[in-house]
């Protein structure tokens, strides 16, 4: 891989991802490792709001990226690489979590004391992030996924609909219900915000 292409691929843009997938389809392991390292944190953050089990998160990410390795040649470029990869991850997660019947976990308590005693803005941000995390963890899986893809992965509703294989209006409805639920759970947290 020449330096120009490698730089483009490493940039993490949609075009860079497409270049990497093309290389992966040709059996380029170096390209696969670049893609793996780029997507692992994104997928892991997406998955860690669905399960708190680190081994399970790593297993689902590996299963997802193994499919990418094996099926890269079938990627036709009709959507972004990130949409394709997240769609695979979402399906893998749904299958794994339904198979485990793992309940939604509230992580607020285990995180609440971590940053206690830091009365600065950053602490406020972290405290709110913990509170939101805990509230999001109580949402049904589909609402949780739609919420995360919107607020933590900055995806548009059309892309989310493609990932979750549902109509756009379903995504909007899921977000609407998620917002109502979070507004109740975070009422005290958000009132103090400017």
């Amino acid at each position, binding site marked *: 891989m020449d330096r120009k292409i490698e730089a483009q691929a490493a940039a993490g843009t949609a075009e860079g991802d497409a270049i990497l997938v093309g290389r992966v389809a040709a059996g380029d*392991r170096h390209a*696969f*490792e670049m893609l*793996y*390292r780029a997507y*692992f*944190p994104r997928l*892991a*953050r997406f998955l*860690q709001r669905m399960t*708190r089990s*680190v081994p399970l*998160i*790593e297993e689902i*990410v*590996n299963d997802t*990226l*193994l*499919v990418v390795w*094996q*099926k890269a040649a*079938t*990627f*036709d470029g*009709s*959507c972004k690489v990130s949409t*394709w990869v997240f*769609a*695979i991850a979402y*399906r*893998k997660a749904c*299958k794994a979590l339904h198979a485990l019947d793992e309940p939604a976990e509230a*992580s607020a308590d285990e*995180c609440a004391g*971590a940053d206690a005693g830091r009365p600065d803005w950053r602490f406020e*941000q*972290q405290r*709110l*992030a*913990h509170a*939101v*995390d805990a509230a999001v963890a109580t949402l049904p899986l589909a609402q949780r996924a739609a919420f*995360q893809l*919107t*607020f*933590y992965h*900055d*995806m*548009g*509703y059309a892309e989310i609909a*493609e990932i979750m*294989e549902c109509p756009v209006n379903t995504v*909007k409805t899921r*977000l*609407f219900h998620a*917002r109502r639920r*979070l*507004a109740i759970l*975070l009422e005290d947290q*958000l009132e103090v915000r400017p």
Partner: protein
Amino acid sequence: MNPYVDSAADDARHNEAQDALPWLANGTLCGTELDRVQAHVETCALCRADLAVLRTVHAAGPGPDLDWDPERALERLLPQLDAPLPAQDVPEVHAVQAPPAQPAPGLRRRWRTLLAANDRTWLRAAVAAQFCAIAVLAVLLARLTAQPDSNHDYHVLGAAGANGAARVVVTFRPDTPERELRRIVRASGARIVGGPTVTDAWLVGADGRLAPVLARLRAEPAVTLAEPLSTDERP
């Protein structure tokens, strides 16, 4: 009625904006939809308040990462890259999803399944076998009915036996022992093919010439009657 809107058109714009607020907050809204939603938000205090909350949530970002390790996971994955391609969960838009592979059941499990009373394959085979057996029996019964046994036809005493050789009717003295009776028949070169009748007559046949047989029978003191019969005559 929402106090912030005063017409059905405004109500529709408000609902559209409310649905779109999360994507206005994350910056992915675009085109005319972005223009419409922004225009509405500028005039709607409720939407502005909701947007402020969503932007706060967006800015706060996710909580801390868990202790996952990409390099550790990659090390586990690399040996699998050369494995044969199994059925996968690939979205249908991009690849046709193969049905999940079922593990091969053990021998005991296969037999248990095979012999299970609710196994449809086994039941179908049993019903088919029963049907075949019934069909064969029905055919046999029909043939027996259509072709009555000729042995059931009426026979006169002088009619031929199985080989058509019965020709002599013989009677013995009443006190002749059974052993003596057999000796006489055997010595005459004949053989019993029927009897005794209600008159204690026996029907004997001879494969060879009839006259010597008849003569030997008549020579026996215990024989009271020995008369030839025609095999073809009917009363």
